[in-house]
């Protein structure tokens, strides 16, 4: 009876995103055909080794790449607005306001020249036009909410007077100051010890429940993903190689790369004598990604694929359900998943 609601579609939809940098050595294909969806109140975890294109993806969503040296193609639709060909003005009014970013390294990502309070207030004033005193009050309020003791006093400190964990909290406070609808957190907890890490993840979870925020959580820590993300996207050499609900991807990986990632991290619950197996080799240079499946030079299951598909054909990734971009026939993939379940 009722017409389909516009709201029912994904809040953020990324289709065939490509990001290429022209460098002196050639074209770097940092992101190559990435697609994913994200709904309100959901968290998407993006995992992958260093250099797999996680940060580049998040900057592309914010339209932050220098247009003169970067080619960005594909579609990024945020709440009905197309972002790839949006004007700089449109993007500016979204950034920090409806789409906020928590950067990887809070020491370098905060300006050394302004107090924490001033930096938080600046974002708020930019988007709300609030008075100086109202913006400051808001900054102090947020610092308190992210768990900084005596926020009224600490707001006047400079970033170098904060500890690493406090800086990360300040960064989070800054990103939340305008109640964003989409939060991109790029390794928000990597530099922190485990207790602080848990506190910060809890904090993000609380805020998500309160404001129905969509979160992209970038990390290479599978433990973090297991505890917080609803869905996981595994990236390799700028491409998505596996995608699905967190529980499924982590317990029944269907791509040999994901399996490798899982085998290479220590797990608290598993037997102590289960050996840690690092993935052999290293990720390819993005200047010359191997043809076919980019993972084939490192893949342990290559000989199970009949013919030379792995070397010549690029495997596709289904857009729905739990999917892996792999030429292995369904059956061996199930085996792979089973193998992992059994110690």
């Amino acid at each position, binding site marked *: 009876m009722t017409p389909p609601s516009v709201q029912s579609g994904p809040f953020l939809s990324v289709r065939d995103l490509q990001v290429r940098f022209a460098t002196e050595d050639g074209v770097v294909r940092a992101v190559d055909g990435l697609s994913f969806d994200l709904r309100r109140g959901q968290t998407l975890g993006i995992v992958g080794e260093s250099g797999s294109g996680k940060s580049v993806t998040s900057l592309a969503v914010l339209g*932050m790449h220098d247009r003169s040296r970067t080619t960005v193609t594909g579609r990024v639709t945020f709440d009905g607005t197309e972002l790839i060909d949006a004007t700089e003005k449109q993007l*500016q009014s*979204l*950034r*920090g306001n409806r789409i*906020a970013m928590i950067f990887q390294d809070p020491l370098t990502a905060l300006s050394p*020249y302004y107090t924490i309070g001033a930096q938080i207030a*600046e974002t708020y004033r930019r988007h709300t036009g609030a008075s100086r005193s109202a913006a400051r009050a808001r900054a102090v309020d947020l610092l308190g909410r992210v768990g900084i003791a005596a926020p009224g006093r600490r707001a006047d400190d400079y970033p170098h007077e904060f500890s690493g964990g406090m800086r990360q909290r300040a960064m989070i406070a800054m990103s939340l100051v305008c109640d964003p609808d989409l939060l991109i957190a790029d390794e928000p907890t990597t530099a922190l010890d485990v207790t602080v890490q848990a506190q910060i993840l809890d904090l993000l979870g609380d805020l998500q429940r309160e404001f129905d925020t969509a979160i992209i959580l970038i990390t290479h820590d599978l433990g973090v993903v297991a505890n917080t993300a609803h869905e996981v996207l595994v990236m390799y050499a700028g491409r998505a190689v596996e995608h699905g609900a967190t529980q499924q991807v982590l317990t029944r990986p269907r791509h040999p790369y994901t399996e490798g990632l899982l085998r290479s991290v220590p797990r608290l619950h598993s037997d102590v004598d289960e050996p840690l197996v690092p993935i052999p080799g290293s990720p390819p240079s993005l200047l010359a990604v191997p043809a076919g499946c980019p993972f084939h030079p490192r893949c342990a299951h290559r000989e199970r694929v009949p013919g030379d598909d792995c070397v010549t054909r690029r495997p596709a990734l289904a857009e729905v359900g739990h999917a892996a971009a792999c030429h292995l026939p369904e059956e061996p993939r199930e085996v792979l998943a089973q193998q992992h379940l059994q110690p």
Partner: protein
Amino acid sequence: MLRFLVRRVLGAVLILFVISAVTFFLFFALPSDPARLSCGKGCTPELLATIHHNLGIDRPLPEQYWSFLTGIFAGRDFDGQWCSAPCLGFSFVNHQPVLDTLLNRFPATLSVALGAAALMLTVGVGLGLIAALRRGKTVDKVSMAACLVGASVQIYFFGIIARYLLVDELQWLPQPGYTSPFAAPGAWFGGMVLPWITLTVVNAATYARYTRSSMVDTLGEDYVRTARAKGLSSWGVYIRHAWRGAMTPVVTTFGIDLGLFLGGALITETTFNIHGIGKLAVDSVANSDLPMIMGTVLVAATAMVLASIAVDACYAVIDPRVRLR
């Protein structure tokens, strides 16, 4: 802060002491004899000896230097003529008190220095900022090429040509020179334009290049990216965030240049016949006028030392991570 000042001022006094001593002893290491000039054509050895005695340069060097030092702090007696502290002695040439001459000449130097510093900073930093923001584009290339030309031009070359063209031929500008700005502001300004422009042409390039490269570096900093991710406009990012981080190397160079200018822009003042400290220094060297040489050297050294203290204080103002100790 207080500790910083005390420490730096003590250091400054030490530096001035060393510089004055070196200048003093170097002067006597030179073959020129200040008495020759006043002795004139019919010079006899007896006359020369009398002049040496009158000038006070027949005594042992350490003793002379000691009198010079005590004169500065306690005043000094010159054959019945009392010179009160701070006494820098009397000129060998016109027998005027050195301090009076220096004070008399300083306003001209100050006018050249402040005007030129302001103009070259504005032009240089402005060009550098524009080039950084439009890097790789035509504006960038043109302004950097202009800087290359500016940096390779010599003051006397540019100054003389500009003077010939703008003053003698086209008569757009009055003759360069110093008039008191309180007596005749218009004449003061007119007489200063050429020196200011010349110093700007020659020096602004350095500022443009420093500003450009340090701005380009800063634009690549993470916190500048954060500023963009906050939704600030390009200008908000440049002016509030990038510019502040980019200014440190510029401040250093500027402090040094301002110190140099305040000590007297030797070539500029000579080229444009401006009677400031710089021209005074050049003239007193030509006349072997030791007390005047000592005076101008002390002014130049003091200016440099104060400028370097000011630069360090500026760092602390720009960057909260810097503590003055």
